[in-house]
């Protein structure tokens, strides 16, 4: 099997697919740290639906689907950002409305689309094996910007993830970090439409972060474990899809879920917390 893999790696399309896997896994997994720690999975799912709807509309109007997807993502971010700053309305309800509205647009577009629907379906499931050089270049740039953002602003990011209001009160440019994050979410989601697609990307926006959550209390390790598990899920998923001839998006998500399950079962964090619960002390009482 190793020989088969090495042989497959000599073909340029396969090389491109592996590179795409690494970039897709890394970008989604880095983002998933924010999605998980800021408890904003609904924002992630809305953005991916926005990208999908935007891309379908783009196909209808003969615009680059990445570009139209990205624009609709940014519009969604412009609505979501101020919304999440308000405490007087429950954002969940509005997110639910926004989400179904975006799906409505996407399916309406699919219905009107007279040309072949295969392209639109691809945006839903993605395809790691048929990426163009342009798709890859966009993905590489977006991943690079996201990684740079995390490295350059690590301490500010820690403060904002910890507590947005405390970060703001301590002179950290909290709004800047938050809006940069929403912008990057849009970019990552829309540039990954071609790889895992607008529906399945949601799994990659939550699972790598959730996997890391089971394993570490250190934020740096958290980013590393999340990224590693995202890349591993994508690469292993590609190998599985290659050998068993199944859709790559589906196998990536299934491998990713498997990684999460393993982390959950063997989580050292859960073990320490259950141990503590068995032995209540005075301090724990006052919690």
């Amino acid at each position, binding site marked *: 099997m190793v020989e088969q893999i090495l042989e497959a790696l000599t073909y340029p399309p396969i090389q491109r697919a592996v590179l795409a896997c690494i970039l897709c896994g890394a970008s989604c997994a880095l983002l998933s740290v924010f999605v998980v*720690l800021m408890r904003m999975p609904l924002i992630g799912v809305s953005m991916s639906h926005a990208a999908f709807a935007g891309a379908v509309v783009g196909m209808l109007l003969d615009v680059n689907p990445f570009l139209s997807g990205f624009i609709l993502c940014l519009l969604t971010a412009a609505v979501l950002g101020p919304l999440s700053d308000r405490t007087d309305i429950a954002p969940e309800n509005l997110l639910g409305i926004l989400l179904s509205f975006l799906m409505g647009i996407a399916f309406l577009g699919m219905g009107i689309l007279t040309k072949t629907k295969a392209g639109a379906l691809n945006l839903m499931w993605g395809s790691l094996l048929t990426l163009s050089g342009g798709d890859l270049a966009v993905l590489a740039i977006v991943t690079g910007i996201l990684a740079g953002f995390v490295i350059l602003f690590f301490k500010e990011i820690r403060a904002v993830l910890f507590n947005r209001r405390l970060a703001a009160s301590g002179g950290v440019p909290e709004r800047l970090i938050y809006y940069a994050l929403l912008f990057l979410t849009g970019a990552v989601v829309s540039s990954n439409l071609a790889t895992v697609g607008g529906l399945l990307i949601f799994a990659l926006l939550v699972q790598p972060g959730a996997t890391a959550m089971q394993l570490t*209390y250190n934020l740096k390790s958290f980013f590393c474990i999340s990224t590693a598990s995202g890349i591993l899920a994508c690469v292993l998923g590609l190998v599985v899809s290659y050998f068993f001839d199944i859709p790559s998006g589906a196998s990536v998500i299934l491998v990713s879920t498997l990684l999460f399950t393993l982390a959950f079962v063997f989580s050292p964090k859960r073990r320490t917390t259950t141990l503590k619960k068995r032995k209540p002390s005075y301090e724990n*009482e006052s919690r």
Partner: protein
Amino acid sequence: MMQDILTLNHVTVRKQKSLLLSGIDLCVAQNDFVGVIGPNGAGKTTLLNVIGGFEKFTGDLFLFGKTETWRRSRRTRLRVGYVPQHLQIDPGFPILAVEAVITGAIGRVGLFRKTGKPERKEALRLMDMMRVAHLADRPLGQLSGGEKQKVSLARAILQKPDILLLDEPTANLDIAVQKEVLNLIDEISEREDLTILYVTHDFNMLPSRMGRAVMLKDSVKYFDGGIREALTGDMLSRLFEYPLETFERNGRRFVSYG
């Protein structure tokens, strides 16, 4: 003559159709320890949010001699520390107690620079003062409510503010821990050169150094003066619309709920 470092002129906060604060005038001098007291919904937290720059308002607010809105420069924000009522955090969240304290120094260090040994050393000193130094390397989410509150205090002081805003810092704590946190707050006010605004509705649990009370009722200022004049049965009964009596024991004044 002490200088006023915080002045509010006719500050009003409106949200949708409700009036959260109405025409508040307030002067706070350097090193004042002010209790903001009033029933639920009186506007205490809103007042703190206005001073902290978390809430839009109309009227004038002067901080350190300059007019401020809710948008503030980094420099101004650094001079106002904030301790929330309750530090909400997921038990599994990847941050250690000492790292949480160090987040208080991030704004001061500035962008593109790392926090290093000096910040860590100072953070540990403050954690020691708050009696939580032994918990420095424990995940913050696993600490008890009282321990988290002490970490939160250390974080705010590491910021080296001139004004410290405390929003019911002893709510949700059991009585022994409440008393401990109160003593620590007294200790902070004694050691550090700080102006403190302390929001509470529990007048039996007040820091002993609190010298002045600002009472709010129905979004307006109801009373502003010495704490001893404020804590009378008559005044409190009118403020809370509930019969309350006060009595003294060992030189301290207590409130009886009748």
